[in-house]
């Protein structure tokens, strides 16, 4: 009773087998239906997210947000969709048509593909593969290719600049992100997402808070949202890589960004907040879906909150922050976690003592990092420049020359 989703899928399989469909075909059909449901559900979430995000943005900026279309402005995303679907698609002169058209599809597909391996509940997993983390990293990198294709094929200088920035940023931030992901893999001794969730006693945000923080920051940079929205910095390079896109071409990039933020929430929930685990999931696995979505929303809300609170960084600050701060820090966290984990395993300490020691070690590293940073780069003193009175108009010096000519 506790698992209606598997019950329905088994009933459906039996139904098809009863009709005399070949067993292999039944498997393919039921997997294809599962894939379609997961993909459609993820895209349907975006429709809700557009409303949620605009409402959150409105409230945080002290305005009501969308409130005209339907109750509480709930029909706003549907109005947006109808509008964007009926827009004309313009392709600029001299653009590479093939790459120009494939880029938005690839951008959305790369984010959608991550959902293939995410465990919604203990028994509701799309593909419980043993290289889940590697799969997520690999598939996520396709987004970089899509952005580069979009910028390169647009035949536009701003688009090209935006895509260069995007690639530099996404590629750089991938390094600490992957290293931060190594920590939960190391703690769970598995790359399968379901194993990582099952190994979280207590949640990894307690055992590895620094890795969670690094993952949050770097994945925000991967999405390319404020404060890391250099790839579409509207005050500098018009709209970045999607300057020349209109209608649904732009819409696909927009949807992929929203879905990516939601996916980041899901990944944070899976890796650090215990995924589907919660009270009562042993007897009623379906409850796990509820817990998973709740935790995903927490991650999503934090990312949105940061996006709406912080100003954009400069490109040199962005890369320096990554290479001179996040990468060494993530490597240090990995080293300390590995050594401490092995030492505590050899000492055979209790689980709660292990978690406490890990937390303490993380806090010490964080504190030491702050101290080192303060020593390297002390707070810049404000240089007061006094106003020196100067005359508004000065007589030209070469008056004599002019008169003598």
């Amino acid at each position: 009773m506790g698992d209606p989703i598997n019950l329905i899928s088994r009933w459906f399989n039996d139904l098809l087998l009863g009709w005399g469909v070949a067993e292999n075909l039944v498997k393919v059909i039921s997997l294809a239906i599962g894939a379609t449901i997961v993909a459609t559900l993820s895209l349907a979430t975006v429709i809700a997210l557009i409303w949620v995000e605009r409402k959150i943005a409105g409230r945080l900026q002290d305005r009501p947000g969308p409130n005209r279309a339907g109750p509480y402005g709930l029909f706003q995303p549907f109005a947006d969709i109808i509008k964007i679907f009926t827009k004309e698609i313009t392709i600029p002169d001299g653009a590479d048509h093939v790459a120009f058209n494939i880029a938005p599809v690839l951008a959305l597909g790369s984010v959608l593909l991550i959902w293939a391996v995410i465990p919604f509940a203990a028994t509701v997993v799309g593909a419980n593969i043993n290289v889940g983390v590697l799969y997520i990293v690999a598939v996520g990198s396709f987004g970089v290719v899509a952005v580069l294709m979009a910028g390169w094929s647009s035949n536009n200088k701003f688009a090209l600049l935006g895509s260069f920035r995007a690639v530099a940023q996404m590629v750089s931030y991938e390094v600490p992100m992957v290293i931060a992901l190594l920590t939960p893999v190391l703690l769970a001794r598995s790359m399968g997402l379901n194993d990582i969730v099952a190994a979280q006693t207590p949640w990894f945000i307690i055992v590895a808070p620094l890795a969670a923080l690094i993952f949050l920051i770097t994945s925000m940079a991967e999405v390319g949202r404020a404060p890391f929205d250099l790839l579409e910095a509207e005050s500098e390079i018009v709209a970045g890589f999607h300057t020349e896109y209109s209608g649904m071409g732009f819409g696909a990039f927009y949807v992929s960004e929203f879905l990516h933020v939601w996916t980041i929430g899901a990944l944070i929930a899976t890796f650090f907040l215990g995924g589907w685990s919660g009270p009562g999931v042993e007897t009623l696995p379906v409850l796990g879906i509820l817990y998973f979505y709740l935790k995903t929303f927490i991650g999503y809300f934090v990312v949105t909150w940061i996006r709406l609170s912080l100003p954009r960084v400069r490109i040199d600050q962005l890369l320096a922050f990554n290479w001179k701060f996040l990468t060494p820090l993530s490597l240090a966290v990995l080293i300390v976690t590995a050594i401490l984990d092995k030492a505590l395993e050899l000492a055979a300490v209790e689980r709660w003592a292990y978690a406490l020691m890990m937390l303490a070690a993380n806090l010490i590293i964080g504190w030491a990092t702050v101290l080192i940073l303060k020593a390297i780069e002390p707070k810049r003193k404000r240089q007061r420049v006094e106003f020196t009175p100067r005359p508004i108009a000065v007589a030209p010096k070469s008056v004599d020359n002019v008169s003598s000519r």
Partner: protein
Amino acid sequence: MLDNWLYIGLFIVVALFIPAVAVFLPRLIGPRKPNAIKQEIYECGIETVGDAWVQFKVQYYIFALIFLIFDIETVFLFPWAVAFDKLPLFAVMEGVLFIMILLVGLFYLWRKGALEWA
């Protein structure tokens, strides 16, 4: 196990098919009236000057190279992390040494000024 990869294969088809439909459907239902001015490349309201494929900073290339080194490193570290239970202390320290060498490499790049943007 093979079922899972079949699922992913089907998912790739679905995940590329849905966006493809979404992107190409507006071509059928949307208006289509291209003209010379509409199809022009946007450049802050003036006519486009020169080629779009301009020279860019060499720094992008250097960062790409550094990324390549570190990304390969992480691929080596994943098996190490997965097999952590079976590793003796010696193998753990070997892994740590490997990370240290790359950390030294990072500091070398830092000192060489490869991480500077200006």
